[in-house]
């Protein structure tokens, strides 16, 4: 299969994720969309790695997965903390940091 298909799929996934972040207000969904974007990146990395024929892209994909795992830990931790303090689970409501 030609490389284009992979890149197109990866782009679609990335765009879906970005759109999700921009239009959804639930932190959980935003976190899911972030994962989607990261994995779109992973897909592109592995596809290019296969095309070039070495393993470097795959190694990068592994690193991205580790980072994604960390990010989920922190993000979910935050969401649980927000939930426990009975604050609204809506990023537009949580705007304490406005200048």
């Amino acid at each position, binding site marked *: 299969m030609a490389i284009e298909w992979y890149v197109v799929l990866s782009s679609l996934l990335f765009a879906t994720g*970005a759109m999700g*972040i*921009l*239009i959804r*207000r639930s932190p959980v969904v*935003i976190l899911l969309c972030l994962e989607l974007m990261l994995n779109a990146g992973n897909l592109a990395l592995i596809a290019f790695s296969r095309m070039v024929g070495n393993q470097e892209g795959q190694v990068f994909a592994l690193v991205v997965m580790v980072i994604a795992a960390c990010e989920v830990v922190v993000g979910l931790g935050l969401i649980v903390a927000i939930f426990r303090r009975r604050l609204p689970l809506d*990023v*537009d409501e*949580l*705007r*304490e*940091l*406005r*200048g």
Partner: protein
Amino acid sequence: MSATAWAWLVLLFPLLGSIACALGYRALPARAAGAIGTAAIALSFACGVGALLSLLGDEPEARHHASSLWTYASAGGLHVDLGILVDPLSVFMVLVVTGVSTLIHLYSFGYMRSDAGYHRFFSYLNFFVFSMLLLVLAGNFVILIVGWAFVGFASYALISFWYRRETATGAGMKAFVINVVGDIGLVLAAFLIFRELGSFDFEQVFHIAPEHFTTNEWTVTAICLLLLVGAFAKSAQIPFHTWLADAMEGPTPVSALIHAATMVTAGVYLIARTHILFVLSPTAADIAAFTGLATLLVAGTIALVVTDLKRAIAYSTMSQIGYMVVGVSIGAYSAGLFHFMTHSFFKALLFMAAGSIIAAMANDQNIDRMSGFGRAMRFTSAMLLVGGLALAAFPGTSGFFSKDEILAFAAERGGMYEIFVVLGYAGALLTAVYTFRLVFRILPGAPCREARELIDSGHVAHGEPVNPVTGEREDTEVGFPGPEHHIAEHSLPMKLAMGVLGVLALIGGLVQVPGVDHVIASFLDPVFHDSPLAEIHPSAGSEWVGLAIGAVISLTGIGIAYLLYMARPETPGLLQRRLRPVHTLLVNKWYFDELIDVLIVRPVLAVGRFADRTFERFVVDGLVSGTAETVRGAGGIVRVVQSGFVRSYALLLIAGFAGLALYFLVVSS
């Protein structure tokens, strides 16, 4: 041991003494500080004698030793050693300073006995002697300035010694500020010397100077005038003299040591030390001589009317230093320094006697209240009389020989310098009158209450302790004079110190009698032989003529004082009424304080107010708050972006990346 080794020891003992008295104030038993302090200075004097003997062992031309312990500062072509210079001049100064200081320490041992600050007093006093010795032994201008500043500080600390008295702390500050003005002059002079000659070292500077400068070149005149600012501030010459009278707020031994015998003569020493520069700038030397002359007359007239015993002696000190300044400025170097020596004997003695009388008067210093002490305090009175005779240049006493030698030299130089002879003798007449005004007021007559008590019971009046100036009550536990006052009759150390000085004041002049001997002149000759003025020697005959005139004038002055204050005691009051404007002028000390107030203090205050109210408010505040406003405004703009909407941040981020990606696509294709 070499002369320089002795000189280092001279410096070491007072420093050790000062540290020991300062650190040991809890550990040392009550009177130990006095003993340590006195012993330190006595040892220093002994080492000074050692240096003298070692110096006398050399050929007269080779009596010139420099020594350095270590490098004091070294940077960018500047090299300053912690160096001393041992030559006849510095050894002479060391001997007079340590000798008189030893006796004054001994006097203080008894005089300050009841003071709560006994240890502090001796620590300061030793520190002062150390600083003064550093000043006279310094081998370059930097160390000279260090010693110069140290004595200024020691003077400040000792004037303000009774630190709970506001008059004393105020006087201390006044002295310090005026002295710092002098320090600035000295420092600027040193800068100029370094710029012109590239060295601070005395030997090098005085070696290069005659070749580098032409006579009366503006730079050398500027150097000399700046040196004079320093010298005049330290030596209380017009217009820097006002601090010395106020400095009498300090304990009497301090007045004797610092403000009569040693520190105030530092200016005389400075002019003598830098005489080569003054030879190159006759203009500056003449300015110095005329200032000295003006001071000796102005201070002499003020001393005629002052009613405060110590202040009267202080004005007499200024007047006598005027003679010394005249001497070293017109070229009568050894005569000026000879007068410095005899003056330190009789003036220290006068202060000691005054201290003893003031103690008997329970700190009251007003001579109008004193009388009849001749019978009440025989020893003190005898010493006061001896000091007075020497000060009034009574024939045969020490002051008689030294003062006239300066005037004889002026007469020998002739020309313009005849003025110094005429006015110098006028000053001598004033001296005799004001000195014996004090003597005739205090000694004879019906005993005042305090003198009566002494005669009847041998007891010293210890009234309520009060400030003599303001009359406020004082707590003797802290920072005020002690509860008891000590008079020489009851204290052996005081008696001893005064006795020795009394003998010196009487016979000290015999070391240099015209035509008979000239110990001081020949000893100091190697220092001054490079000055063309040193060639001038008044003949013994003309000196004796001068002495005869001096004797007549001195006796006339004493006679006038006798007429005014003994034979017809009503005349002074009459004269006061007749010459009211003159009297007012003199009582107000020629309005020098007011003049300085108008010319300097008020303009400086006005500048300060301008800086505070206008410059500070509009310029400085404007700058500061302008900066703050700018930052705040910029922050306001940036705040708008910080909406707190996470999704709008994400949009900005994505839009930014998209924009960048587009840009690179466009650029690459």
